[in-house]
């Protein structure tokens, strides 16, 4: 069978059926993902798996839960390097940490943590700033497989660039102080690993599970369409305590979201918002 033409009605139909099947059979709702992005990810995944059609993928996913996990990983994208966006971590250190210091305890939620690189980077920062003792760091993702990776506390051995990013982010020691080398992997120190609570949570379908003083959700909502991203913003708002901080990705704005008026953007922080109402 030859693959359907890109963007054809047949391909559209196959896509709808695949998403419906994944939703009805597994409860994973991919229907409100941003379509152009979803299609690109799926087409790439088909090429990698040497499948011709989305229908073939549907058949495989329905009959094999491991195939679903593979699909979810493909949609999650490649792992990001540690401290991938040093400007964000630097401004977090300079603008958010001083406020957190004045609070007796701080709950932090990293929503959409993937395989955990950014969570560990944040944990290192909190530890360096002397906040580790009174912080509880929760990290969630919809994929159980990615969470399992994250829990191991092992990441590909950081390259020179990541060590440099760590310093650009205001790092006070050497990145290598925080892990032990195991072949081509870096395993984070025990206090870091044991202080993070990795938990399964699907932003698309699950409700709020606690109140937090800091919520990180960076570049996760890029994958969603406008309707779903608005629903998620509502959830993030409900999960954030008053005067708490919401940290988004560099090109994510809240200006058109339902609770835009409830936030103040912290100047020159690169998308850190404070809930003021």
């Amino acid at each position: 069978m030859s693959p359907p033409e890109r963007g054809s009605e047949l391909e559209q139909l196959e896509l709808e059926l695949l998403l419906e099947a994944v939703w009805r059979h597994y409860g994973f709702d991919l229907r409100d993902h941003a379509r152009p992005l979803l299609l690109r990810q799926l087409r790439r995944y088909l090429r990698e798996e040497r499948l011709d059609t989305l229908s073939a993928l549907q058949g495989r996913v329905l009959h094999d839960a491991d195939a679903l996990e593979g699909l979810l990983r493909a949609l999650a994208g490649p792992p990001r390097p540690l401290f991938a966006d040093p400007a964000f971590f630097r401004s977090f250190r300079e603008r958010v940490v001083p406020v957190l210091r004045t609070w007796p305890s701080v709950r932090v939620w990293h929503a959409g943590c993937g395989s955990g690189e950014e969570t560990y980077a944040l944990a290192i920062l909190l530890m360096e700033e002397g906040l580790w003792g009174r912080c509880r760091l929760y990290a969630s993702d919809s994929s159980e497989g990615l969470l399992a990776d994250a829990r191991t506390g092992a990441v590909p051995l950081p390259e020179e660039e990541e060590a440099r990013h760590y310093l650009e982010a205001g790092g006070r020691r050497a990145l290598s102080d925080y892990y032990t080398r195991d072949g081509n992997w870096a395993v984070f120190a025990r206090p870091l690993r044991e202080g993070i609570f990795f938990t399964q949570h699907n932003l698309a379908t699950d409700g709020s599970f606690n109140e937090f003083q800091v919520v990180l959700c960076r570049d996760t909502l890029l994958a969603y369409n406008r309707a779903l991203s608005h629903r998620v913003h509502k959830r993030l708002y409900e999960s954030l305590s008053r005067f708490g901080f919401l940290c988004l990705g560099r090109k994510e704005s809240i200006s058109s979201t339902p609770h835009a008026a409830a936030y103040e953007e912290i100047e020159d922080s690169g998308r850190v918002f404070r809930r003021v109402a």
Partner: protein
Amino acid sequence: MSPLGLLVVGAPREALAEVQAALSMLPTRMPVPVVLVVHRGRHEVLAGPLGHRCPLPVVEPDDKQALLPGRVYLAPAGYHLLVDGGCVCLSREPAEHGQRPSIDALFESASEAHGPGVAGLLFGGHDDGWAGLAALREQGGCAAVIHAEEETDGVERVPLGGVKDWLARLVSGTRMKVLP
């Protein structure tokens, strides 16, 4: 020619000066959004220099920002810019042809979102962009290329000085179709 809905432009980093020149030829009353990918370094500031001689505002859009006529949207560093209906959809997928933003990613998504209503202008000299231009042609869109070595079916070859006329033809076609 079907009514124009969107103009997409793609260029490698080497063509920056020519892109600047082409942007200066945009009509002040551009009836559609212009979306632009220039291959770029992570810390390179481009919106300012590109907007310098352009009669339209040049902005680096945020994710899910609406695409409005009469503006030039420049793909931000480190993200692919895809078109989702009348909206921007940014992505951190892997680089294509070693590039993020990639021209193919923009052109393909634009042609799927707007079909024959997309016009594409490619500055040659790089692998990136040709597949996108082909996709755009398949959907019935209008395609032109500057500095192409090779001949490609259905793709108009335009010298830099001819961009003004090419744009004028696109826009006048649109006016006639859109106005009652």
